[in-house]
């Protein structure tokens, strides 16, 4: 079921602006991830869609119908909460069946569907237990099951993985992706973890301060971030940013220089003299012999990660910090001088005044 937000804003009674004039469309069967730092409004957007908050202005449309005035219990959506919010006084079975019961579905049908979902999620033996007797991971599955059993028009997931251990989080993430494929259901997933967003979403919406900075498929967000915020939020380790200006170099070509960096301008549509930010992801930098690359730097610190190492270095002359990722086979030692080559296609340019991407 397609969901659309049209110019939705939410201002809380204390004056806090949680969502600013947001327009967003989620296609039928799409998994959209809302990602951003805490306080960016992503959970509020979810609650607005669920009907737990009412927008201060704007419309919420589902399947072509204006649902803005429809109360939460009539929207036929399912939500998985960060804290799971299971009914503490009910058994797992009753937790799963509660929604159906409230809609007047027959006992027999409820039992059948509950059992089917429990089997699919492998929580059958938990059915008679109460939430207090379950582990965190088990509760999470019950929360998921409660949503699935209702066969809702769409799923809303509010940081469902945030409370899990890293390993469990990884496994459950995969399961969620599989679930989405199997159910072909519209899903809106909220997280603060950019890696989770990148791996799960058909599209991701990067949010900050109540507005969406970019809404696009993960690859596009990674390769062509719309502004500096998106560029530094997505991708780990964080993108390097350098203050540069465009000058006309030898032979009439435009050259970007500043902060110890000196590269040919990748495009022609830059004004000479314009202050810019040059973005370079750590993985787009390769190690070469000093003098053979685009910059020379001295290693400050090496963080070995097993399969690769994150190298923090300082560009000679300017002292700018730069981070890169190198393979472990290169015996690197702090204080050595290295040469850095930048991948041409990996150079991002942003305007300094508003952080927006060039071209």
């Amino acid at each position: 079921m397609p969901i659309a937000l049209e110019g939705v804003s939410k201002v809380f009674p204390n004056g806090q602006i949680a969502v600013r004039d947001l327009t967003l469309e989620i296609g039928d069967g799409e998994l959209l991830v809302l990602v951003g730092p805490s306080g960016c409004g992503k959970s509020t957007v979810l609650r607005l869609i669920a009907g737990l908050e009412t927008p201060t202005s704007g419309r919420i449309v589902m399947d072509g119908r204006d649902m803005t005035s429809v109360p939460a219990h009539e929207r036929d959506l399912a939500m998985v909460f960060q804290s799971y919010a299971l009914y503490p006084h009910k058994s797992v079975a009753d937790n799963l069946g509660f929604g159906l019961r409230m809609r007047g579905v027959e006992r027999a049908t409820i039992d059948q569907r509950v059992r089917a979902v429990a089997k699919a999620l492998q929580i059958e033996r938990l059915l008679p237990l109460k939430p207090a007797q379950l582990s965190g991971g088990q509760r999470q599955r019950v929360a998921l099951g409660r949503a699935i059993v209702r066969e809702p028009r769409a799923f809303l997931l509010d940081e469902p993985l945030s409370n899990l251990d890293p390993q469990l989080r990884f496994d459950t993430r995969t399961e969620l992706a599989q679930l989405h494929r199997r159910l072909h259901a519209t899903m809106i997933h909220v997280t603060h973890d950019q890696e989770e967003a990148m791996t799960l979403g058909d599209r991701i919406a990067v949010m900050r301060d109540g507005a969406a900075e970019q809404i696009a498929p993960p690859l596009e967000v990674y390769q062509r971030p719309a502004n500096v915020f998106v560029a530094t939020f997505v991708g780990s380790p964080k993108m390097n940013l350098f203050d540069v200006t465009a000058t006309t170099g030898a032979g009439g070509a435009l050259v970007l220089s500043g902060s110890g960096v000196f590269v040919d301008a990748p495009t022609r549509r830059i004004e000479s003299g314009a202050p810019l930010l040059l973005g370079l992801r750590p993985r787009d930098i390769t190690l070469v012999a000093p003098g053979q690359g685009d910059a020379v730097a001295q290693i400050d610190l090496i963080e070995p990660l097993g399969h690769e190492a994150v190298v923090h270095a300082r560009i000679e002359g300017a002292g700018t910090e730069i981070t890169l990722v190198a393979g472990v086979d290169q015996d690197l030692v702090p204080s050595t001088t290295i040469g850095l080559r930048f991948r041409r296609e990996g150079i991002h340019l942003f305007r300094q005044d508003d952080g927006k991407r060039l071209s």
Partner: protein
Amino acid sequence: MIPGASTTIDTENRRLARRLLWPALGVIAAIVGFPLAWMLWESLHLDELRMPWLGRPFVGLANYRDAVADARFRAAIAHTLLFGGVSVTLELLIGFVLALVMHHAARGRTALRVIVLLPWAIPTAASALVWRFLFDSQAGLVNEILIAAHLLAVPKVWLVDPMLAWVPIIAADVWKTTPFVALLLLAGLQNIDQSLYDAARVDGASPWRELFEITLPLLRPAIVVALAFRALDAFRVFDLIYVLTGGGPGTATESISLYTFSALLQKLRFGYASALSVVVFAGTFMLGLIYIRLAARHLLTPER
């Protein structure tokens, strides 16, 4: 921001809230609201039930002027303030020590809590009588002990002396209410992060230092709450004094509430008693406002 079409949900909420609230609010309005309004109105009239031939004329603020000029009323205010000041101070001090003891007690904490909660739960009338018994001049226990300890030669007649009559009253109130204060302070103590004390100990702070620099400042909200509750109750005191001394000897221990009661049901001066009631009400109201401002503001802020 222009409100969107979402008001239907809000209207539903409002309607439900109204349905849920009106029974309770209706009762309160009927039992409290109207009587208070009536009382305000009545206080502006002369209404002496013992002198019905005077009718019930409107006299404006005459009752209030009489009250200000009334020496017995002024004495009642002084008594109430004296009682409040002494009791609350003692209760805070002793309650604080008790709270500390309960906080650090490893075993028997429950037993301690139960025993300490009993005086609070016992009806005031009963406690008042018990303490009157203890201070009885004939052979009450207090006199017996003081005589045996050679602090007294002859049994003291506590309830006949205008100043000494306060001793059993304050003792009874302290006995009865310190537990409540202690429990409030204990809750506050338990909310203080233990790691602060650990850090202080590592820094080499003495126990007195810890007390003044960590405990007391962090306990301030709880102290304010306890202070406000007790001040409010002390201002309204009636049961205890009525049963213990009846306001006596004469009117030496009469509190404001007691005097109002006497004006009302003994002298049947309804107009005047209403004015006195308004004064008591105004006093508690102001104390209440102070309390809300100082301590309870967080209780009134909306969630989400």
